[in-house]
């Protein structure tokens, strides 16, 4: 097997997910006339964007053998801050963007720093920061508040044909991160640390600094997702991030990235995001309540993990 396969080329898992997407589409076509309409296609994509960005961040962290549960608190906090600053002028919007990006990176660096330098398990570290940030968001405002300039809100609703601007942006992000994993030393280090941290250290890699950078990148992507979400809501919701911590993990695992790190990539995550979004959509058309969708999601996780259980060894 060649290296290209690692980051980009299709692997068996990808083919399985693609086949499942195809099945979901077939069911969708037969379930409702409204499924194949441009409006529905665009709606499903709209629903994907935020999760796709956060799942991308989670993919990077999990590839390095870590985990980031801080999104729930971080997204809420960043949404509130963004809406509080952005106001209704372009200048304020720029300032808000800069602030949120800086804060996202800072949150990530704190996560990475405590994990890498103090040695606290990333699950505990990010659970802690998430809780703090969730509290901070609610301390700023208990009710959705603040605003974004109308043109920014319009932009997040904008479409190019059936494709929302948000989706185009997501595709660009996935390509960019995929390229980063493939063509930068940072990308190689992410895989190396996730594969075997001790061996990576013996090979002379700056493991700790790299971890800080990984969580910082995760925080940055979280900031991007927060800006998009605030744009869609038009207001800063202090509970915007609730559930995103665990929801971000499902597509990563279903896409074939190992929770233990070192193996997987962004293509699998992208396909899994598409699968899960259309699955929910089709189940809606079939009048199957979201309750059963939860059951399906849980079973899909177990199926995906059992599928990879044999391959994760050795």
């Amino acid at each position, binding site marked *: 097997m060649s290296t290209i396969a690692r980051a980009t080329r299709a692997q068996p898992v990808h083919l399985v997910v693609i086949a499942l997407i195809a099945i979901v589409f077939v069911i969708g076509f037969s379930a409702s006339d409204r499924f194949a309409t441009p409006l529905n296609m665009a709606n499903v994509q709209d629903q994907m964007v935020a999760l796709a960005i956060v799942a991308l961040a989670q993919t990077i962290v999990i590839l390095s053998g870590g985990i980031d549960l801080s999104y729930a608190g971080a997204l809420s906090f960043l949404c509130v801050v963004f809406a509080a600053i952005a106001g209704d002028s372009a200048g304020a919007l720029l300032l808000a963007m800069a602030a949120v990006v800086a804060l996202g990176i800072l949150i990530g660096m704190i996560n990475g720093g405590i994990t890498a330098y103090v040695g606290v398990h990333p699950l505990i570290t990010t659970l802690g920061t998430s809780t*703090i940030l969730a509290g901070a968001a609610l301390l700023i405002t208990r009710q959705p508040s603040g605003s974004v300039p109308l043109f920014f809100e319009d932009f997040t609703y904008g479409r190019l044909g059936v494709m929302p601007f948000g989706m185009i942006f997501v595709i660009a992000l996935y390509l960019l991160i995929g390229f980063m994993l493939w063509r930068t030393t940072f990308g190689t280090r992410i895989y190396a640390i996730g594969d075997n941290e001790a061996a990576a250290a013996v090979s002379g890699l700056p493991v700790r600094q790299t971890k800080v950078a990984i969580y910082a990148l995760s925080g940055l992507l979280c900031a991007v997702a927060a800006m998009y979400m605030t744009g869609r809501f038009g207001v800063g919701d202090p509970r915007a991030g609730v559930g995103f911590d665990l929801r971000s993990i499902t597509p990563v695992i279903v896409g074939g990235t190992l929770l233990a790190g070192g193996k997987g990539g962004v293509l699998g995550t992208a396909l899994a995001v598409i699968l899960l979004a259309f699955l929910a959509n089709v189940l809606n058309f079939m009048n199957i309540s979201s309750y059963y969708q939860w*059951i399906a999601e849980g079973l899909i996780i177990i199926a995906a993990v059992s599928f990879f259980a044999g391959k994760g060894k050795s």
Partner: protein
Amino acid sequence: MTATATNPANSKPNRNTVRATQRRELLILLGFLAVIWAVTTALSPRFLTPANLKDILIQAAPLGFVVIGQMIVIIVRGLDLSVASIMATVAVLSTALIDSTPVIFIVGLLLGAFIGAINGYLVAYRKVTPFLATLATMIVLQGIRFAYTKGAPGGTLPEMFRWLATGDILGIPVALIALAVVGFGMHWLLERTVFGRRLKLYGDSPEAAYMTGAPTKLLVVMAFVISGVLAAIAGLFLVGYVGIVDNWTGRGYELDSIAAAVIGGAALSGGKGSVPGVLLAALILVSLFNIVVILGLSIELQLVIKGTLIILAAAVYMKRSQG
């Protein structure tokens, strides 16, 4: 063994023994609790009243049950994200099906044990990471619960339920008596039985445990079963306390229980944890929540305090184990 062999090992106390280290950790937790209680008492006369202290203890009881189970799973290098979902599912299903309090409890505990066994099976036999296995269980249970109730649970609570959760015997809350019984039982199981020894040894080194003849898979399954049963108890007490059965009963307990377990000295690397430690940690958390209310501070500060405490505690334990 002859009587003359009694205690030669303990003849000279040593600061660095495993037990002395654990004792110091307990003392630190106790000291911390004393300090926050003292400070709050100085700031508000409403804190140190029998009524308020009783309130804190009753509120701490459900978390106390859950955190003991969570700790036992963490001891075998696991993690149980499904505890909150078990709490709600057990409460919703068993109260909807039955209206005799004792039978509700029996069915509820069996249901908790069954769900725990599924978690344990996935982890021990299917080699699924505990995080993912219990995450999946959590989501599936959520679906089953909502699907069964169609979103609106209709279970009614028998009178006895309210009494169990909020009533008292000779001035001592029933919930607290139950927690004390379970706490002593689990402490005895963990510290004084072969099963408990095996659990801790497994967490210290699964490989060495296997080579010394421990039934490793059974241990892991049993740890999750215990966690499931204790979560079920906690769920029933919590609905009794609140007075309504809700689909989101116990929401947040998965993370609160992990937080309390870590603050109480359990390490995700396994093998470490004690019932007194995690119960003290649960008491510390609930006290802090109460203090925020008593002092009239923003309720959201509870989250900030909880998050800060979990990171600080983990960092302190990490430094101690390195030093």
